[in-house]
């Protein structure tokens, strides 16, 4: 598995690495560094250090460094990675030598948003303020990337079109569904306020959907549930009609694109991060079945007639930063399933 991951990182990053010169020898802070996004950025930076002598120092801010040890022991034990153990909300001072920050701390699990909404808002709003405050006192800060959320666009557009960064978004529903996106929206504005006041070089990224190794299958998103059901030998249950379309960017592409934004993104800009390859949920289920050794039943329950698409427009990031998808959805899914099958196997032993 290690080899697959190294190869995948290389495939995603090699076309871009020549534009990453500004990151060489720099100190990079990742908040939420034990999460899916944060850990993948760290993995890619480590690859640049190992393969291309980038000599970056990586600092991971997390409440619990041990979590990374459980998740990925190879990453945990490295000399070019150090930790700041802190709740992001009570962070005061950062090491003065930090040059870049990727701020990705926030739990994307919507079950948590529902059960603990106040804490969810607190971490996003107060946490972002704490980071920006600390960053404003750094002497040589060259770039800050804030991971907001594609959900700030609100409900998917009725016409199914891809959502561009200029989209005004559709009004959010009142109530509990809007807690996470509204907190993210507030934090985007907060970043821009710090940019305005202290001239902090902040770039905003709006992530959509990703898949890849190290993503927990028990997360409440359709594709994760499908994979979990299929790998357990249970039928895949599609609650709706299977027609809504999503797109999934593979983990190593996601990390490479984030590094491209960090190195070359314009401050004050907003970039969508995701894949433009649309797949319907039914196609997702069928693809999973074509990969696993013993296909399972697919039950389309037709509980609703929703056909909403939630797809980012990537024109801007493609043209501005020269990034592209290096993995088709099929390949991304294949690698993700391979990794999970391998993990299942080693757990059973």
């Amino acid at each position, binding site marked *: 598995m290690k080899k697959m991951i190294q190869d995948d990182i290389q495939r995603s990053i090699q076309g871009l690495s020549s534009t990453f010169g500004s990151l060489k020898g720099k100190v990079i802070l990742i908040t939420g560094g034990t999460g899916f996004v944060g850990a993948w950025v760290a993995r890619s930076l480590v690859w640049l250090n190992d393969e291309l002598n980038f000599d970056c120092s990586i600092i991971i801010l997390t409440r619990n460094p041990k979590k990374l040890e459980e998740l990925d022991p190879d990453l945990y034990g490295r000399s070019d990675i150090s930790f700041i153990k802190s*709740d992001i*909300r009570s962070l005061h001072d950062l090491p003065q030598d930090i040059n870049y920050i990727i701020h990705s701390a926030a739990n994307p699990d919507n079950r948590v948003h529902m*059960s603990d909404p106040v804490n969810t808002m607190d971490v996003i709003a107060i946490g972002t303020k704490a980071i920006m405050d600390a960053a404003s006192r750094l002497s040589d800060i060259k770039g800050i990337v804030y991971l907001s959320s594609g959900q700030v666009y609100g409900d998917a557009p009725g016409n199914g079109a891809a959502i561009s960064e200029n989209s005004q978004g559709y009004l959010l529903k009142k109530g509990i569904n809007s807690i996470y996106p509204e907190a993210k929206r507030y934090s985007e504005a907060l970043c821009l306020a710090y940019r305005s006041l202290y001239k902090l070089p902040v770039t905003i990224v709006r992530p959509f959907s990703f898949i890849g190794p190290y993503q927990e299958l028990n997360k409440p998103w359709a594709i994760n549930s499908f994979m979990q059901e299929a790998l357990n030998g249970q039928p895949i249950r599609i609650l709706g009609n299977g027609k809504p379309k999503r797109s999934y960017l593979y983990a190593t592409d996601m990390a490479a694109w984030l590094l491209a934004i960090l190195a070359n993104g314009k401050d004050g800009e907003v970039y969508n991060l995701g894949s433009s390859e649309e797949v319907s949920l039914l196609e997702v289920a069928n693809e999973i079945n074509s990969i696993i050794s013993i296909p399972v039943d697919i039950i389309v329950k037709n509980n609703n007639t929703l056909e909403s698409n939630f797809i980012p427009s990537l024109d801007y990031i493609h043209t501005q930063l020269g990034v592209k998808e290096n993995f088709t959805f099929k390949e991304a899914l294949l690698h993700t399933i391979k990794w999970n099958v391998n993990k299942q196997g080693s757990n059973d032993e």
Partner: protein
Amino acid sequence: MSSKIRVGIIGTGNIGTDLLMKVQRSKFLECTIFSGRNLASSGMSKAAAMGVRLSDEGIDIIVREPDLCDIVFDATSAKSHLAHASILEQLGKFVIDMTPAKIGVLCVPEVNLEEAIGSRNVNMITCGGQASIPIAYAISKVHSEIDYIETVSTISSRSAGPGTRINIDEYIEATEKGLKLFCGVSHAKAMINLNPANPAIDMQTTVLVELKNPDIENILVEIEKMVSKIQRYVPGYKLIVKPTFDNGKLLTTVRVQGLGDYLPKFAGNLDIINCAAIEVAEHFAHKKLAKV
């Protein structure tokens, strides 16, 4: 020389903050460190206003400065306490665990205070356990033949935070373990209702047992004795339905109104577990001070 024993509190949520207020009022205790994760929380700012030393390093501050305190209240979560317990044991701290981790000596002060302070890790079971076990224990003293006890607690919806809600099974398991242990029964059942009524209702707990020939008079005597003992540290603990027998089933109900320190009065469930924990800490402190 200070005439008080120094106390550390880890976890600065509602339980931790209310404990802090009770500690600072005590003749035998003083809080020397109030440690959590988020300095911006309302518990932290309350503690800051009281002039208490704060930390956002959780247990790590006590690891770095072990001389800070002798007693540690762990008001985090069962999962966190499992990690904290061995660290605090190595540091030689007297630990009062407020979570349902149930790895230490389970304690209901009116039943086994001496045993508890002789150990190094005391577990306060659950709020419902603190309210119901003394009553169940009083009944089982009169009727040792009882083999099954159940309790049902109703608490105000607003007194249950996200931690309790997500881990409701933990509450049940810890309360049942306490009932079995203290009453010597082989089966116990604990149930909990969250009631959303507005204005918020006070916590109440009913104890039910199956009996053939109940000695109601003696049961009442034992229960009233127990209630008055508990009222020493929880003044709002009241017997509201005296032992009542119908169709082979004996039932009795207590209501718990809190002191209204940091927590509201209706959260008697949280108040009683904190009062019980302070009782344990004070007794430990008293003994220690007497020795010096």
